[in-house]
């Protein structure tokens, strides 16, 4: 009797659970993605949030395309040639392409896009600065355009593959207006817009006429979920198929690994972390001390333990994918003995103090800073950790030169070009370079900006990296991975290092 009761209770519970959950969560061919932020507008000129790009890469095309393999390939432009010593680029456009609303894509659309980006509409957005080298776009014929540049820009072709350079429909925007376009984007990409609910999500569907072939999915939906634990719970509950970065912290990896339905997919991203030294005050004034502090810290162990292996050691402020990376350059070794000797030589007494300033919302970095502090303690330097709210650290503490002896720098641009970070970090007068001014370094940083000869430019960027390491401006820590949590029913998913993931080749079971 008792057993029967138990059974009926169980049965009732099963039925109830079936009723509560209702129909299976997925229709055939729908992929649901959890993204940590709603960019608020889908207009390419409005934001620079990477989570704008993780959606919009599916809606829009650029003249060029760069996929997960980081190779630049033709997209809306089938070929291009540099003229006038790199000051003019001629693009031949793809024929027969239409926007999602039926409007044809041609040279006028390209001109419209860049006139808009560089004109009044683009003025208040964050995008314009990246394309300001473009003087004007000239229509040569319906499928040929010339870009006139004020100076050669070696990174321009990469920049044309994303963000502000996404080609937008002239007629649609002129007729419907900017506000409407913000919330109802139209492009030429493999997925077309269906609906958008601010702070909740955006839904797309396949655009079978895409020039690159029809997507394998019928529908592609994004939900905005900021809290990592919530996003992972949705993934575990099977209501989300992919959780994209930056969401999942290293600490949650075991949860995903422990679930048979799920897997962790990761790839080295653009983000690098370093602890920059304050060369103006405290014991870090002395170059030998800075070198000693680096050698005192076992960065490989930190990566293996605290970062669960989801990072690579770095010798300069860039990862291995970055243009300007020198594979022959090795990080300073972990050598506490040598560190102690250097400290002694520099006259640093045991018990000398340093303060490490870090971003308070960066849980991983706080743990890393604690480990660094312990390692420094082992060579007789007492380190205290001070956490700041990110905005305060970036807007006030660093620019005003109010940091401790060491402070966190965490950067990386989607272009994966060392110039992007190096210039901002080391050039005199830059916002986040409050202490250092080195004319030689300035000259090197400036010189590479207008060289279009890749090999020559790469060489200069590598020289910059070596020069910075020789002057020991920072303690390079690691290049962290972009971490994706993925349901195993998702097939053919290739993680994009820069979060600009195009999901047309992905399918679901």
């Amino acid at each position, binding site marked *: 009797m008792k057993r029967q009761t138990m059974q009926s209770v169980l049965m009732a519970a099963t039925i109830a*659970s079936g009723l509560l959950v209702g129909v299976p969560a997925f229709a055939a061919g729908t992929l649901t993605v959890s993204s940590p932020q709603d960019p608020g507008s889908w*207009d390419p000129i409005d934001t*620079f949030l990477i989570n704008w790009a993780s959606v919009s890469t599916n809606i829009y095309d650029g003249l060029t395309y760069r996929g997960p393999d980081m190779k630049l390939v033709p997209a809306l432009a089938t070929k291009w040639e540099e003229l006038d010593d790199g000051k003019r680029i001629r693009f031949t456009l793809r024929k027969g392409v239409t926007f999602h609303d039926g409007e044809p894509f041609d040279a006028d659309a390209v001109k419209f896009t860049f006139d808009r980006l560089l004109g009044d509409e683009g003025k208040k957005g964050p995008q314009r600065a990246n394309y300001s080298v473009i003087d004007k776009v000239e229509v040569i014929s319906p499928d040929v355009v010339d870009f006139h540049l004020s100076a050669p820009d070696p990174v321009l072709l990469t920049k044309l593959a994303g963000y502000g350079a996404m080609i937008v429909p002239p007629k649609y925007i002129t007729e419907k207006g900017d506000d409407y376009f913000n919330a109802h984007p139209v492009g030429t990409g493999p997925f077309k817009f269906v609906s958008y*609910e*601010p*702070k909740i999500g955006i839904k797309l569907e396949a655009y079978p006429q895409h020039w690159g072939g029809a997507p394998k999915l019928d529908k592609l939906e994004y939900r905005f979920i900021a809290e990592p634990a*919530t996003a992972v719970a949705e993934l575990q509950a099977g209501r989300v198929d992919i959780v994209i970065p930056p969401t999942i912290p290293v600490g949650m990896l075991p949860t995903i690994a422990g679930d048979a339905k799920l897997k962790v997919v990761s790839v080295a991203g653009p983000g690098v972390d370093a602890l920059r030294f304050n060369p103006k005050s405290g014991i870090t004034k002395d170059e030998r001390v800075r070198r000693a502090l680096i050698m005192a810290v076992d960065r490989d162990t930190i990566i293996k333990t605290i970062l669960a292996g989801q990072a690579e050691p770095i010798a300069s402020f860039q990862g291995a994918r970055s243009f300007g990376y020198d594979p022959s350059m090795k990080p300073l070794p972990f050598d506490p003995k040598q560190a102690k000797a250097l400290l002694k030589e520099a006259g640093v007494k045991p018990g000398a103090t340093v303060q490490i300033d870090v971003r308070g919302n960066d849980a991983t970095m706080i743990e890393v800073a604690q480990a660094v502090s312990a390692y420094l303690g082992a060579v007789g330097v007492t380190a205290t950790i001070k956490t700041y709210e990110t905005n305060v650290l970036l807007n006030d503490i660093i620019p005003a030169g109010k940091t401790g002896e060491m402070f966190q720098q965490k950067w990386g641009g989607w272009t994966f070009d060392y110039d992007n970070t190096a210039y901002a970090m080391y050039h005199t007068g830059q916002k986040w370079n409050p202490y250092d001014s080195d004319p030689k370094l300035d000259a090197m940083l400036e010189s590479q900006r207008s060289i279009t000869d890749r090999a020559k430019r790469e060489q200069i960027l590598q020289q910059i990296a070596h020069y910075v390491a020789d002057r020991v401006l920072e303690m390079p820590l690691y290049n962290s991975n972009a971490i994706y949590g993925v349901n195993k029913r998702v097939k053919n998913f290739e993680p994009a290092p820069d979060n600009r993931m195009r999901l047309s080749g992905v399918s679901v079971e």
Partner: protein
Amino acid sequence: MAGFLLKRFALAIFVMIVVTLVVSFAIRMTGDPALMLAQGSGSVTEEDLVRIREGLGLNQSFAAQYFAFLKGLLTFDFGRSFLGGTPVSLLIASALPATLGLAFASLAVSIVISIPLGIAAAVHRGRWPDQAIRILSLVGLSFPNFWLATMLVLLFAIVVNWLPPSGMEGWQSFVMPAATMGIILTATNVRLVRTAMLDILGSQFIMVTRAKGLSERVVLYKHALRNCAIPLITYFGLQFGGLLGGIVVVERVFNWPGMGTLAFDAIGARDYPVLQAVICVLSLLIVLVNLAVDIAYGLIDPRIRTE
């Protein structure tokens, strides 16, 4: 009554001005929204920041910005979000019902649980049901709401998969967030109901009702409870304000598209227009609820009405 309402209305405006002034001023001390917008682009020059600030109207003085905000308020125009330029009124229009729905559901959960439990504790004062309820309420009080929320998600969304872990999709979505908030409110409310009941149960008119031979049920729920109503309603009303504060955390854990989520994102991005509007609307709401409580007194207690 009209004079009373007018006074309350003036008070509401005063509260809103003070609150928005403090918030607008304070958030401007802590960071630059232009930088938050431009950050992803790698090297940001001061010119870029100046250009973006100009676009957002941040180059004007604080007084000018604040008065523009007040002027907008008069026409229910809260301006546009710095993040993407969505009109703030649109964001509020979809977030406010979500938050109110959750707040009322939580309050309802708490009232439905705490009244019978509180009465039971009062009736069995000093005996085991009373002790058990008091211990439970202490345990409930000690739960941090984010912890409780996480445990509920783990159990009901992942282990048994009965409820959606987050979002606002149907009535199922309300269960866990409302329970999280409700349980924590219940912990304090039980004690309150118990104390109020103990007061009343000792009074002479209760003795009279019992002497009349009325059933215990009628004595407790009809006569005793009604006389506890004034302190309880005051307290539930006050609680509503606290509830709106606490909802930020619960909304974040359950990815609830409400005012808390809006505020949380706005603070992170230094999205001044959104933050100012959220604070403004919430403070107005708290003032209105307090007003409603005052009016409710009159409806419940005829003695107050005639005064």
